[in-house]
């Protein structure tokens, strides 16, 4: 049972979609050059930048993994948001790395690396950035679809013949495919300009939905109930990550490293800096957006905690069997199931539109930013000073379309990992560790060179990729705190990756940063200094 009304809520969603498409397509006439398409002609000002960055960095996937963190870890689950807000504020205030990056006049980070480390490093950096980024965003579509389908209460119908039978059994895939095509249309036509204008609209809609649902939860569930639920389920660890049995120091340190690295090198964030009209504006966007990162984590975490408070065993027993199975399968489903039960009609339409807005702004921006690295860096050897603006625009549009097709297949068919945030962290680390080390060394260490850069990129990518692969192929039975094998609902032993038991994602992440840094230092010191021609002497 859900409160989604096609007449009222469907109209709100329809109105939002039409407004977005019109706004996104209207600005295509301003796109005349590759620079307009990729970085909006460097004409973005502070408030548009803040709205765009806040909208881009809040997708349905963000809402889902932050809510899952709140559901599992209580308020501690929102800690990454606080760490990222501090990182954004400090980097914005000091200009650490972002000042030299923006002042260099480049369009992507690898382009900056070419100036210091050569074209091969630029190409290699582009490859790992795209690999990490695309694997990362691969889960966005399915997670987003799961949320929308569950909140609206759509359920798979009986399989039947013909088109209607297919639609009944593939409602998630069809819904998300239509959404992706809409996003692709305006992104392909208007590039960064369409992304900025639609981001702005999506920021407004998203903010209304987020605040309305949060107030509804605070009024209906109550602050006291939320806090006591965390006290009961998580104890002190629900408020303090350092004493949480599953998290602790290693988790906090890894999250801090990741958030600093993401603030410095995450392609969607950096593209706002590079699209800003000057360095000062770019830094103001960083400081102005910083607190949004607290909200980005804490608001969905509150929704997750509210789901934990509301979905008691007695309430779950009353839900349809299919919903109970979803809840038992993955804790990420708790928040949308909860919202589907408590959000009334009317507000449901606003929530649906807000989440569509969140997802569309993220998808469009991610497609464009990773496309920009493919064009500007990976394809650089093919088009350097040889392609016209017209051809460059055509190729960029083609790349965005290809990324959309990749998302459609990988995103809809890849099975969701148990903890989405851990998956995103591991795939993000493929490039976050190495590229952040390269950026710091490039800006502030005179001795850094191409050997160190290559070593950092290779070491920084190998560890997370090996971790991801071994997690899938090397599984062992899971044990609880008492040393007993954990069993699922069917009585079968639950299995987990061996590396999760012996190392865990946090130490793997910290190790990646440490090894990438060591490789940068060792490689740079090992490379012989460039030979200088002997200076002719008077005696010669």
């Amino acid at each position, binding site marked *: 049972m859900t409160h989604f009304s096609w007449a009222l809520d469907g109209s709100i969603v329809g109105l939002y979609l039409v407004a977005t498409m019109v706004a996104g397509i209207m*600005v295509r006439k*301003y796109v*005349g050059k590759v620079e*307009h398409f990729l970085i*909006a*002609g460097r*004409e*973005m*000002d*502070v*408030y*548009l*930048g*803040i*709205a765009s960055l*806040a909208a881009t960095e809040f997708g349905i996937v963000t809402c889902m993994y932050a809510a899952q963190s709140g559901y599992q870890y209580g*308020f501690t689950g929102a800690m990454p948001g*606080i760490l990222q807000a501090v990182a954004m504020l400090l980097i914005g205030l000091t200009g650490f790395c972002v000042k030299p990056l923006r002042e260099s006049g480049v369009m992507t980070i690898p382009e900056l690396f070419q100036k210091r480390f050569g074209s091969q490093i630029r190409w290699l950096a582009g490859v790992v950035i795209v690999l990490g980024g695309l694997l990362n965003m691969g889960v966005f579509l399915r997670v987003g679809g799961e949320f929308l389908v569950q909140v609206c209460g759509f359920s798979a119908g009986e399989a039947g013949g013909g088109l209607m039978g297919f639609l009944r059994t593939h409602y998630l895939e069809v819904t998300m495919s239509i959404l992706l095509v809409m996003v692709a249309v305006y992104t392909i036509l208007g590039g960064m*300009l369409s992304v*900025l*204008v639609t981001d*702005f609209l999506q*920021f*407004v809609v998203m*903010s209304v939905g*987020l*605040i309305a649902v*949060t*107030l509804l939860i*605070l009024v209906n569930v109550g*602050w*006291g109930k939320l*806090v*006591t639920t965390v006290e009961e389920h998580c104890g002190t660890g629900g*408020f303090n990550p350092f004493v949480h049995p599953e998290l602790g120091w290693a988790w906090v340190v890894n999250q801090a490293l990741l958030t600093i690295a993401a603030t410095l090198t995450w392609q969607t964030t950096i593209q706002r800096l590079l699209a800003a009209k000057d360095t000062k504006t770019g830094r103001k966007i960083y400081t*102005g957006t910083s*607190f*949004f990162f*607290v*909200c980005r984590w*804490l*608001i969905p975490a*509150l929704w997750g905690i509210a789901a934990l408070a509301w979905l008691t065993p007695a309430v779950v027993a009353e839900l349809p069997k299919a919903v109970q199975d979803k809840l038992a399968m993955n804790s990420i489903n708790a928040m949308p199931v909860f919202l589907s039960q408590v959000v009334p009609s009317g507000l449901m339409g606003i929530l649906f539109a807000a989440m569509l807005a969140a997802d569309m702004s993220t998808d469009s921006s991610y497609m464009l930013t990773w496309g920009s690295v493919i064009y500007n860096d990976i394809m650089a050897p093919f088009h350097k000073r040889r392609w016209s603006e017209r051809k460059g625009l055509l190729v960029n549009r083609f790349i965005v379309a290809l990324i959309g097709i990749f998302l459609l297949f990988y995103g809809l068919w890849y099975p969701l990992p148990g903890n989405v945030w851990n998956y995103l962290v591991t795939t993000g680390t493929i490039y976050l560790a190495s590229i952040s080390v390269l950026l710091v060394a490039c800006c502030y260490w005179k001795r850094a060179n191409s050997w160190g850069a290559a070593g950092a990129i290779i070491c920084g990518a190998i560890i997370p990729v090996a971790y991801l692969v071994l997690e899938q192929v090397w599984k062992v039975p899971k044990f609880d705190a008492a040393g007993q094998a954990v069993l699922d609902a069917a009585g079968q032993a639950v299995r987990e990756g061996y590396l999760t038991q012996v190392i865990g994602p946090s130490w793997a992440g910290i190790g990646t940063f440490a090894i990438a840094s060591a490789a940068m230092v060792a490689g740079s010191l090992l490379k012989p200094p460039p030979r200088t021609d002997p200076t002719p002497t008077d005696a010669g």
Partner: protein
Amino acid sequence: MDELTRIVREHWFWSGITAACVLWYSTVTVYVAIRGSFDIKHMLARLAKKSKEEE
């Protein structure tokens, strides 16, 4: 009421930061939205002007 006071006192950090988030989304987003709309207008005007100059 006593229970709520205890909760807010014991968990002042999370109580404060949650209140700040709600306040932030209710006020700052409105300000950003208004100023952002002017930014869009000016950005498109500058791009149109540049485009004319280049022609």
